[in-house]
């Protein structure tokens, strides 16, 4: 399943890089510890977090993640948005908490972690 389809299905807000949604998603990864994401996520993962620090963009880039989903309607600051646009990382946002959106993605998409 592609990021675009997930965005449509779950009604995510696309905050940045709307032109980079045609990417296949390999699975989901939920964590708020960026060190953990750096160590354990896999390329193509869609990353569920509430961290909005601009480092998330670098981590996503570094690990070739497909997209970042910010939970609980968290809004990132200008720096993070700028960096995401510059690095072409899709930043998405949802009103759901991490547990719920992880659950929904896991159930609906059968995404492997």
């Amino acid at each position, binding site marked *: 399943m592609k990021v675009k389809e997930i965005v449509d299905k779950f009604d995510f807000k696309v905050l940045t890089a709307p032109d980079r949604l045609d990417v296949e998603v390999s699975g989901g990864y939920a964590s708020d510890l960026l060190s953990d994401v*750096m160590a354990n996520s896999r390329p193509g993962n869609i990353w569920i977090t509430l961290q909005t620090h601009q480092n998330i963009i670098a981590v996503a880039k570094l690990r070739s993640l497909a997209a970042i989903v910010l939970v609980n309607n968290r809004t990132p600051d200008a720096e993070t948005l700028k960096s995401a646009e510059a690095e072409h990382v899709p930043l998405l946002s949802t009103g759901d908490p991490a547990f719920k959106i992880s659950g929904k993605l896991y159930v609906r998409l059968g995404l492997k972690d």
Partner: protein
Amino acid sequence: MKAFRADLHIHTCLSPCAELEMSPRGIIRTASEKEIDILGVCDHNSAENVSAMRDAARPFRISVLAGMEVTSQEEVHVLGLFDSLDSALGLQEIVYAHLPGENDEDAFGLQPVVNEQGEVLRFNEKLLIGATTLALEEVVSLIRSHGGLAIASHIDREGFSIIGQLGFIPDGLPLDALETSPAMPVETARQKFGSRLPLTPASDAHRLEEIGRASTSFWLVEGTVAEIRKALVRQDGRKVMNGEEA
């Protein structure tokens, strides 16, 4: 100039997670026994016990730096160390304004503000253990604009450390040093993090027995933040004497 042994990161009984035995006199007595020359008093998001600590340290040859361990919104702990108590309290005012919640004593512990005898003056009611709504960059820049040193706490730990929470140190973040915890020898830390920034081991003591469990040795004229700042950038012959230099 001479060598100063500094434990730049200890808590007092004001921190809800610290033992009540962490009274000003108790701390100073223990620090004295452990031959500590400089103590950084860094309670969570508060500097309200610094004054009592300075009073208690007066009979001893121990310099007490006014400090605070601020929690950023990303849950990164950063130390701010100041010479001037007023500067620390100035920062505290801003931190309080961005610190939501009330303490729950049953869950987190008491937060007594004390005098030098350890007598409780009042209980702080803020949720000191919580995170501020300030971004990490804002915390560091506030510490610096108040004339303080900004040191990232216990970077070798997973929780509440800049590395654990954010994966790596953001480019251009103007930190003065990185603290390592007693759990990791300086050498290992240097290999692992290989930073351009100096490493300052500290105890992060929450109990008396933990004081001085890790420390940093400085070559200074006196035990002040101004002198340490010079040492961290190897200015005017001041220097950090850890690892290869110890």
